[in-house]
Every structure is written in structure tokens, then in C-alpha cells.
């Protein structure tokens, strides 16, 4: 497993993210955006112009692209905390099991089935 301080981005798939201080600094503005989506008026403004909303929060170009394209893996690699990223997923009607599938290369159904079979005990 990976527990170093700088989770890698790009094609490498990180086994385990450790949301440390550097990661939190990197993802701070993006996580603030996700937190804001708890409020319905904010969700409406976000959906009306996602790129502009990202600019308002000061996201980097890469973070903005990840958010607009719903690249969940990239959001983590760019400093997203799973609890914050999940706010965006909820807004889209996506479950934590859907995200689990994305992170593990499974469909949501396969991921749910793995959990219901006792979880992924061999990873």
C-alpha cells in the first residue's frame, strides 16, 4: 500500500490515499467547492455554469477539468478528500459504491456484490 505523503497522479492507481496536510493544501479550494454543494442554491448555481463556479472557488485548471468531466480518480489525485468529493457524487445521484467501482475498475454492481460477499479481504 502507499502511505507516502504525496499520492501520485496520472496513470498510476494509488492503493490507499492518506489525506495529509500537503494533500489538504493542494485540494483546499476544490474541497471548499464540494462542501458548498450541501446547499440547494449553491447546487443550482454550480449546475448553471460549472466552469464559472470552479473559477469562483479558485480551482486550478486541472481541478476544474476533473470536476467538470467528473473524473473521480483525478479529483482524489488533485487533493480531493473522499468525504468532500462525495458531495459532488451525491448531487449527481451517485453512490459511494459507484465511486468504489470507479476506483477499483469494477462496475457498481460488481463492487456491491464484492461487499455483500464479505468485502475485499485480499487487497
Amino acid at each position, binding site marked *: 500500500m*502507499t*502511505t507516502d505523503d504525496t499520492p501520485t497522479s496520472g496513470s498510476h492507481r494509488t492503493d*490507499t*490515499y492518506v*489525506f495529509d496536510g500537503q494533500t489538504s493544501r493542494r485540494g483546499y479550494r476544490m474541497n471548499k467547492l464540494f462542501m458548498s454543494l450541501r446547499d440547494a442554491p449553491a447546487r443550482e448555481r454550480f449546475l448553471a455554469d460549472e466552469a464559472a463556479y470552479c473559477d469562483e472557488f479558485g480551482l486550478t485548471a486541472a481541478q476544474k477539468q476533473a470536476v467538470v468531466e467528473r473524473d473521480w480518480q483525478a479529483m*482524489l489525485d488533485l487533493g480531493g*478528500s*473522499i468525504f468532500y468529493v462525495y458531495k459532488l457524487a*451525491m448531487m449527481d445521484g451517485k453512490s459511494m459504491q459507484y465511486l*468504489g467501482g470507479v476506483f477499483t475498475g469494477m462496475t457498481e454492481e460488481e463492487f456491491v456484490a464484492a461487499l455483500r460477499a464479505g468485502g475485499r479481504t485480499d487487497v
Partner: protein
Amino acid sequence: MSEVIWGMATSHVPSIGAAMDRGKTQDPFWKPLFDGYQPAREWMAQHTPDTAIVVYNDHANGVDLDIVPTFAIGTAERYQVADEGFGRRPVPDVIGNPELSLHLLKSLVDDGFDLTVFQELDVDHGLTVPLSIYCPDPGDAWPCKVVPVLVNVIQYPQPTAARCYALGQAVGRAIATFPSDEKIAVFGTGGMSHQLAGARAGYINPTFDKMFLEAIQTDPESLAALTREDLIRQAGSEGIELIMWLIMRGALNPTIERIHETYHVPASNTAAALALFDNRVSR
């Protein structure tokens, strides 16, 4: 003087609350979990505390990343139930116990634990799901007052397991000197093994969980010796929440009696457990 009458360790998975809120507890998927709670609920209903100290973590609802207190305590008279994105849970607001909160705060600070103070706090599923596990049908009001104790388990460095255990012991000492005749329950919430993100998402470790469930009663010192890396490796990146069980355990007597336990995989992405301990056996 006040005393801790029991301690409960329990997962606080949001879907457990959602299953109750939507009347799904008898669905085939959820029934085993809720059946597992039943003996504990019956015992707790016969042994009601005046106040519950609920040790939990917020999940980007009442607290954001602007300020990340390692340990914090609520001192409010009332805590609103948070809207986590799609409306608040249909459960009552939480009534606080400011006198006990302020007594705990002073005692803990004097004991070397410098807690952050929340005078205002919306409480999320981390606190309300354990309350629902204790009391599934609160009606208009929860059956006890609540003191929230918050722990940073989301952003590294989380407090060590040893520090959590020591904090719990200090909470126990503080309760013993509270000049009021209150019966107190302590909830340690979160866990068990789970990991939400990364290629290892969906990780569950029943061997570790069973060990932890046993040792929380009989050998908490061994659990307090686990490092953050041990916990992340063996319980998953979110399984580190289990350090909060050690605060509950520390507040209890060295000898406690296990009333009930249950373990179920999965609740959402998590191994869910409950362990209930009577604290009034060693006098």
C-alpha cells in the same frame, strides 16, 4: 457524583440511519444488522443514562477544512441536525448539557488535553446514527442529553490511538468529579474496517475486526499501541476511526462486562459492529 453506567462502541455508517428513516430495517439486506442490535437496545432501554457523551467525527457537514481541531467538545444547549446535502435526517435536534461540557473542558484542560470548543455545531450522521442505534424511535426528543466530543480522523496526522485512550481515561476522571448525580453513557463511534477510496476501496478485514472487538474489553492497551500506519493497513484508511472507540474504553473502568456484541458485513462499504459494556461490575 456522576458515574459512567455503560459504554457502547458502534459504527456510524450513514446508510444505517437512512435504513431506519426509510423503514427498511426489516428488508432482507438490513434485517440481520438490526436483529443484531436488538438485545443491546433492550438492555440499554432498561439502563437509561441522563447524558450520553458521544465521541464521533464530522464528515464535511458541521466542520470543514478551514479549521481542523484534533480534539473538540461541544458546549451548546442545543445542536441542530445537519443537512448533509439532501435534507436533514427526520430526527430531533440534540439537546446538550453545557454544565457537564464545561466541567469536562476545565477538567480535561487541567489534565493536559487542550480541547477546541464548539459553541455552535450542526451534528451529522456520525453523531445521530449512534443515537438512533441506541434509541430507534425517539419521537419528539432524544431520551438523553448529549455532549459531543469530536476527533479529527479525516486529515493526517490523526491523534494517536494511545492519546485517544489517555483522553478517555481523563474523561473518566472528569466525570467522577462532576458535582451532580448523573448517570452517563459513553459512545465510541466509527469503524470497523473500511476503505472508501483508492484501488483498495472495499477493503474489509474481519480477522482484525474480531481481534479489536475482543481486545477493546480485555486488552485496550494493546490497541492503544497501534500506530496510524498499523490501523490504515489493517482496518483501511477510514477504519482509523476505530481510535474513537479507545476514548470510550478509557472512560470506563479497567474491568467491564460485555452485555452484547454484533458484527455484520457490509453496511454500505463498511464492516459494522456494536459492542455494549456494563461499567458497574467492578465495585
